[in-house]
């Protein structure tokens, strides 16, 4: 028998038994969550047959879109081992700013041809600005992103309510142009516009993360910022860009919400934080940074929406839905830990 040194090479590790190995391989597979989605639909279908209907499927698809866009932005931030808690406030703030620009009752550009494009630009700009505040605070003041975005979340959630008091007599801004509603309701070649927009964002985000220099830098910064810095990766710029991306994604989601609700409400999106971070984590993106993919996030959002919709159809109480979602997210986090262990053991 030939002898090879063992302690520090990969060759010495064992292969686990084949059933375990297959299970392990499935757990590590990119499509694990998708498999879960299919399994879940099959399991729940006898109880809520409607879930297999075209109407519910298209509802799930359109409900997914705003959440997906926010989650894509969040994926970037989670990969750099940060977290963006302010996304909900960005959605609210962008929503009321956008609505205040285009509303027919005293909007800045109300009843003009520029109302809609102006409002969309204002919303994206709002997202960019809040993202920049987050990013600069993290890199310049060296503050943990948790604290920074918790602060901006509170600030802009409050600011959004306050902003409305200057632009409306009620608690929200309504009377938005009909053409803007088209975004949420319209179709192109039979595909909802929001799905096209979110799909485009997902594809671009996927390519950026997996195939570009910037994407490589994002993973490197998340895995080990010190090593990334020594290798000449612009660590700070990368972090800043991730927060900008998260901000813009959140404001894109705001356009979908506002168009859908036909109202700029300062509390729109207030409750989606758990869903956003939960979906990304369910997908498999690590809270420890350095690991994550856009496809994972797509599957995570899909799974969460399936869960949510089926519970809604069952008429489960909101609190039951919270408990179940919380359980699933906890499970996902545990799987993340188990996966890491297993990978280390490999």
């Amino acid at each position, binding site marked *: *028998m030939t*002898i*090879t*040194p*063992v*302690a*520090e*090479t*990969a*060759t*010495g*590790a*064992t292969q686990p038994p084949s059933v375990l190995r297959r299970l392990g391989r499935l757990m590590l597979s990119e499509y694990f969550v998708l498999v879960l989605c299919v399994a879940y639909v099959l399991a729940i279908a006898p109880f809520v047959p409607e879930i297999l209907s075209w109407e519910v499927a298209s509802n799930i698809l359109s409900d997914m879109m705003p959440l997906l866009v926010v989650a894509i932005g969040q994926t970037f931030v989670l990969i750099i081992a940060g977290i963006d808690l302010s996304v909900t406030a960005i959605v609210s703030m962008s929503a009321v700013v956008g609505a205040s620009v285009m509303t027919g009752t005293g909007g800045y550009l109300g009843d003009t041809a520029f109302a809609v494009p102006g409002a969309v630009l204002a919303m994206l700009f709002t997202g960019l600005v809040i993202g920049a505040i987050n990013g600069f605070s993290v890199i310049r003041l060296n503050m943990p992103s948790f604290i920074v975005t918790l602060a901006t979340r509170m600030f802009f959630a409050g600011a959004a309510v306050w902003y409305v008091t200057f632009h409306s007599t009620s608690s929200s801004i309504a009377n938005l142009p009909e053409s803007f509603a088209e975004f949420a309701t319209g179709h192109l070649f039979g595909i909802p516009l929001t799905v096209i927009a979110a799909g485009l964002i997902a594809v671009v985000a996927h*390519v950026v993360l997996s*195939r*570009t*220099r*910037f*994407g*490589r*830098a994002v*993973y*490197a910064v998340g*895995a*080990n910022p*010190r*090593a*990334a*810095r*020594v*290798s*000449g*990766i*612009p660590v700070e710029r990368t972090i800043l860009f991730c927060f900008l991306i998260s901000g813009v994604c959140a404001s894109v989601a705001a356009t979908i919400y506002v168009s859908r609700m036909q109202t700029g409400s300062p509390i729109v999106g207030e409750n989606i934080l758990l869903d956003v971070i939960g979906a990304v984590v369910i997908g498999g993106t690590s809270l420890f940074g*350095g*690991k994550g993919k856009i496809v994972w996030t797509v599957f995570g959002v899909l799974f969460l929406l399936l869960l949510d919709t089926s519970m809604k159809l069952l008429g489960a109480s909101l609190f039951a839905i919270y408990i179940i979602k919380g359980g699933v997210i906890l499970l996902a986090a545990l799987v993340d830990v188990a996966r890491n262990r297993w990978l280390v053991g*490999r």
Partner: protein
Amino acid sequence: MSTLLEVSGLTKSFFGVTVLHGVDFVVRPGEALGLVGENGSGKSTSMNILGGVHRPEAGTMRLDGQAYAPQNPKDAISAGIAFIHQELNLFPNLSVEENLFVDAFPRWNGLPFIDRRAIRAQTEAVLHEVDLDIRPSTPVARLSQGERQLVEIAKALSRKARLIIFDEPTTSLTRPEVDRLFGIIAKLKARGIGIIYISHALEDVLAVCDSIAVLRDGHLAGAGPASEMPIGRMISLMVGRSIDTIYPDRQTAPGKQVVLAVEALSQPGVAEKISLEVRAGEIVGLAGLMGSGRSELARMIFGLDRFASGTIRVNGQPLDDPTPEKAIEAGIAFLTEDRRGEGLLMDFTIAENTVIASLDSVAGPLGILDNKRIASVSREMGRSMHLSTDKVEETRVKHLSGGNQQKVVIGKWLRREPTLFILDEPTRGIDVGAKQEVYRIINALTARGSGVLLISSEIEELIGLSDRILTISRGEIVAEFNNRPFDREAIMAAATGQRAWEGASA
């Protein structure tokens, strides 16, 4: 003659691969056994068996004549076996006394309160035994590496250890600290405590040990009294062939062009008007103790640390307010001393690490990466570096041995064809074979015309490789040695600031 520990026929395999083949050795009370061998030779496994972490498949151990078969680390501790690890197992936030008694605080009158007074008294006693003059209430965070190690030894003594195992105890110590440690080890021996001393630093092994056992591939390659084990013999036993010199001959002479010119670089408390030059094809060695400013100098040049004043020129071009990005752009490469923390992205594959510092060369329009090209350049790098695996796209670097990891770090920088390569401890923690490989690469680098600034704790290495050696002490360049053969003692003396080594250099 009595024996303290007798190990015979120790055999262990992991997952069908035998890593220990009937290893025997003996430790006598009051004696130190040096255990040497390359990484993977079986040292760690035998020590893990001794410490109760693993159980052997065959073989016996006797401690003081009694059969010794620990089932877990606790058994080993209660049998009087203590480990002093490379990474110390102290809680920096706790005080010295708390660390000593953290797993068994003495009770106050049998009540569940900590008896502070008893702890204080016992701590003072053991600290005295290791010649450590600090207050028991000092937080460990405030101690130097050397002092922390002495605290570990004190901890072993407080547990009535009969056999103390040192695993690479000197890697992070300054020279005076090493001497102090050796003094304590001598004291421990005088008290009848047995020592097992594991180290890659063969000179240290010779200085401390009474007998030496060499392991190779899980076999005992040779053993004997230290007097019959000169370093050359140890190395040839370790690598299984005789080695004349591990330092390759230089084929090229340094050129004229100055690739790095540092002038009056200052940063309060770190660097004091440091000026130096490195020419094309030249290896400049930088000797100094830990904390002397040698690594800090490298980090300042590379833009990782700030400096207050001074200028840096690379190839004649000023490098103002350097950042790593700018430094790399100017042609500098930097191998840091912290390979795991800074040199590599441990979770990334070989291929990903290979191109991480040169992404622009494998990116197309819009920054889209060319994965095929990444794979081919990484395989190319692997071949030229003699990497142990060619699965560059699948293998994560954390699964490589230290030597292979270091080759990836060097390979990653060579892709940029640096005009100046700063190497900070390039051979730390890697075995003799890999060391030679690294030396060969450094040589090839100079042959291509790159300048090298080499930092090392191993004086031998500096002497063996450098064209010039500068010594740095307390942030100042204190001496320059321009001609081979270098005077080892004088370099030491200069590096230690003329104090601890006064006797030796005289």
